[in-house]
């Protein structure tokens, strides 16, 4: 079974300051992990993904995430927030098993607000 918990439903940051979005996962197998972003009235866009290669994953728009198996975490960070980063962010897990391939399990989402 797979599940994901996003520890913050809302995060507010000032423009130019670091962003940290926290995610913990549960997986019976070696998981694939993703972060997706959803801007208002837009579709989901993939930011980055981890599939068992390097534990530090770099994504688009300056975001990165680190897979920590011992902590079952996959936190998303960005050194300096931009106004355009205001959106909802989803942490997603998928067990890499025959029955679970393709079934993405989404977290509840973290709404990010960026203030000038």
């Amino acid at each position, binding site marked *: 079974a797979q599940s994901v918990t996003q520890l913050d439903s809302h995060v507010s940051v000032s423009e130019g300051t670091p962003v940290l979005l926290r995610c913990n996962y549960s997986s019976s197998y070696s998981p694939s992990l993703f972060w997706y972003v959803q801007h208002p009235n837009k*579709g*989901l*866009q*993939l930011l980055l*993904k981890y599939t068992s290669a390097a534990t530090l994953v770099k994504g688009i728009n300056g975001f990165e995430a680190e897979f920590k198996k011992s902590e079952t975490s996959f936190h998303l960070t960005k050194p300096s927030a931009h106004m355009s980063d205001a959106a909802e962010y989803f942490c997603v897990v998928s067990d890499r098993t025959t029955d679970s391939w*393709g*079934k*993405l399990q*989404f977290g509840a*989402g973290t709404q990010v607000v960026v203030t000038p």
Partner: protein
Amino acid sequence: GAGVSQSPSNKVTEKGKDVELRCDPISGHTALYWYRQSLGQGLEFLIYFQGNSAPDKSGLPSDRFSAERTGGSVSTLTIQRTQQEDSAVYLCASSLNTQETQYFGPGTRLLVL
């Protein structure tokens, strides 16, 4: 290239009516998925198709929901006898296969009155 497209973008219907939602995946993608995004339940998996294999319907919430994929390309999600709790955004995604990244369409916003 063209992304995943969905139609209609918005649909308002009356309780008890049937609705059909359409998804056009990215050309060449053999896997196609449907998800539902609602205020109460968040984002949840509904069904996926992979090539000619039988679809995985394990996420469909009731037998009022069904989906088909004709010719390995376009998919239609049908909701029969709609209920107010079916109101949600229905998202379609496609990928090269089930092990590859899923690309999402803009969704169909369904409102059941």
